[in-house]
């Protein structure tokens, strides 16, 4: 673990206040924040997140992004750590480093120029995912500085737990963000994650206002958010943030502290899609359980399939400049300029 100077802090009496996430840790000299990857040193802060435990080149659809440069790959980095401690986390071996003593630090320092050059050579975006990218804000800024001249977009898969001040600095560096919406109210969000919900919704709205492409993901968690009333509330939250925001509904996998529950059934995922559509969301997706139709983008006006996807890949788009070829309806997203078909064998990804 290598500590390097951090930004996003200010004096607070004898303490230093971390201004990156809404936990707002006030730190005495030497103290470590709730995230376990930022600490005070002297009058400033240091971060351990200028590092990555992964260097994965995979499909942008895996993050998931369905309306952002379909068919693109993403060079995915992950600095260990998270501001949440979700009971269901499938990535706890990387997200909960520092909280669980048995988990090793597995990240290596990152050289932004090297990452940006590698992404550019592959025609890939740079993604920060798997753990919490907000905590890697300094690395994001440095990656953006190296990536911008090369035309490489930066994307995040995040819990959205970031202060609006910090987001104002970071958002211009981001081309797309997928935000997790995990619970329909404050009490359940706190119980699940250890953090309040309101800052997540505020960040979601701020990202939309800033012009960043936004998609939302929600895992259906037994006893937390998978009942119809909760799903309806969350669908309404997404719709209030933007009526055309794509919403990804994810199967719950029994893991970490929720190993006693059952995985989400295909029926439950189908029912959740119906609830989301009733709430007015036209772009609702399920990766696997509902087959190709669950992954397809259809024009909300004429019903034509405008993007066909396999598992973790786009097969083809018929959009020209984001317009439905059937009726001319504008489909929101950051699309390729003309219709596109994958040349990769779809047999790699069973449907």
């Amino acid at each position, binding site marked *: 673990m290598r500590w390097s100077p951090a930004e996003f802090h200010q004096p607070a009496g004898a303490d230093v206040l971390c201004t990156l996430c809404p936990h707002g840790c006030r730190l005495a000299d030497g103290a470590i924040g709730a995230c376990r990857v930022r600490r005070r040193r002297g009058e400033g802060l240091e971060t351990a997140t200028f590092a990555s435990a992964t260097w*994965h080149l995979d499909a942008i659809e*895996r993050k998931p992004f369905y309306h952002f440069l379909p068919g693109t790959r993403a060079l995915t980095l992950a600095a260990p750590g998270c501001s949440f401690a979700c009971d269901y986390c499938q*990535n706890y071996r990387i997200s909960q480093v520092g909280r669980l003593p048995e988990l090793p630090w597995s990240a290596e320092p990152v050289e932004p120029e090297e990452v940006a050059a590698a992404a550019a050579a592959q025609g890939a975006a740079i993604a920060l995912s798997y753990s919490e990218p907000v905590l890697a804000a300094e690395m994001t800024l440095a990656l953006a500085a190296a990536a911008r001249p090369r035309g490489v977009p930066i994307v995040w898969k995040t819990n959205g737990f970031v202060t609006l001040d910090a987001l104002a600095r970071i958002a211009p560096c981001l081309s797309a963000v997928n935000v997790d919406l995990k619970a329909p109210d404050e009490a359940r969000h706190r119980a699940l994650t250890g953090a309040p919900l309101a800052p997540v919704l505020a960040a979601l709205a701020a990202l939309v206002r800033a012009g960043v492409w936004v998609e939302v993901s929600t895992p259906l968690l037994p006893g937390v958010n998978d009942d119809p009333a909760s799903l309806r509330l969350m669908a309404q939250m997404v719709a209030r943030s933007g009526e055309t925001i794509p919403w990804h509904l994810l199967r719950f*996998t*029994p*893991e970490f502290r929720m190993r006693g529950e*059952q*995985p989400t*059934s295909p*029926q439950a995922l189908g029912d959740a899609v119906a609830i989301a559509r009733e709430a007015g969301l036209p772009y609702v997706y399920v990766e696997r359980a509902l087959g190709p139709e669950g992954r397809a983008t259809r024009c909300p006006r004429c019903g034509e399939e405008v993007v066909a996807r396999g598992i973790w890949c786009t097969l083809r788009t018929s959009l020209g400049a984001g317009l439905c070829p059937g009726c001319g309806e504008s489909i929101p997203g950051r699309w390729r300029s003309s219709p596109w078909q994958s040349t990769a064998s779809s047999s790699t990804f069973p449907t």
Partner: protein
Amino acid sequence: MAEYRFVEHLPDLIHPDDYAGDPAGRRVRIQVRVTEQGIEVLGDAMRPAAIERLLEALGAERIEQMLCG
């Protein structure tokens, strides 16, 4: 204790239809292969902990896993 490594891709052995056929989520699939380096066991499960316990019990020194996201 096995060392866990995060890898870009592992083949799926559990498929969407499995979830409808096993609502309790107990299904585990393994594929064993002899390679020049030794024995490779590929596993997939609806409950990741099930396959991890199995691999650790088999004495795996290194376990590769995919991450979510």
